[in-house]
């Protein structure tokens, strides 16, 4: 199945990004395809390479980058939400790109399922 993922919350404060990541891993292991992961609201904070969690904690941002690289997944950050929160091209982690909300709607159209993570 072709899956789209929407992440609506930032890293660490909220479990949404963790769960979305675990879901993506599980889906890939089952042979599904991830069409795109779209980051909206505070979810855009998952995309900054300035993130430095303590050594003994998971690195949520790098984890997404690695997943994108290994599986060729499109990680898209909403431009309007990103600019509001100071997320810009120059601080994007590897594998992320900034684009318009149209990419979210297009994901809903193209994917067999759009799975939303957040409250």
């Amino acid at each position, binding site marked *: 199945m072709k899956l789209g993922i929407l992440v609506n919350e930032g890293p660490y404060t909220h479990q949404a990004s963790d769960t979305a990541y675990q879901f993506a891993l599980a889906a890939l292991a089952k042979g599904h395809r991830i069409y795109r992961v779209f980051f909206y*609201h505070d979810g855009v904070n998952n995309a900054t390479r300035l993130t430095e969690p303590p050594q003994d904690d998971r690195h949520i941002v790098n984890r997404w980058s690695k997943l994108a690289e290994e599986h060729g997944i499109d990680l898209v950050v909403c431009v309007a*939400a990103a600019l*509001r929160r100071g997320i810009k091209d120059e601080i994007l982690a590897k594998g992320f790109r900034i*684009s*318009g909300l*149209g990419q979210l*709607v297009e994901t*809903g*159209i193209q994917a067999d399922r759009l799975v939303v993570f957040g409250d």
Partner: protein
Amino acid sequence: MSDLAAGGEMQEETSGKVKKFMFVNRRAPYGTVYALEALEVVLISAAFDQDISMVFLDDGVYELVKGQQTQAIDVKNFSPAYRALDGYDIEKLYVDADSLAARGLTEDNLLVPVEVLSAAQMAELMDQQDVVIGF
């Protein structure tokens, strides 16, 4: 909206495919950014010629209340944008009857025409959708 243009560009790639999109609004208009950013998605989605509906339930019904005044909290009152939805051909607005009643509101308190549904009717409508995004 700053990225309306980006939405327009995508139109060609998706032409022909029409899905039922439902945007579920459950939060008060101020206090968090969800209501405003939900509205931004809805306005962009209008550029894709999809079958769009909006649902307002729980505190989300407050998003549509007339006479919002936000000067005191120094936040933009974006409620007039709901009146503009009509111009984007987004005309399917549904409000949960129990959520209105629980807050002492009626249709007369709302700034746009809506269809008031029972929880059972709302569930049925949700069941018919292809894509449901909640904010």
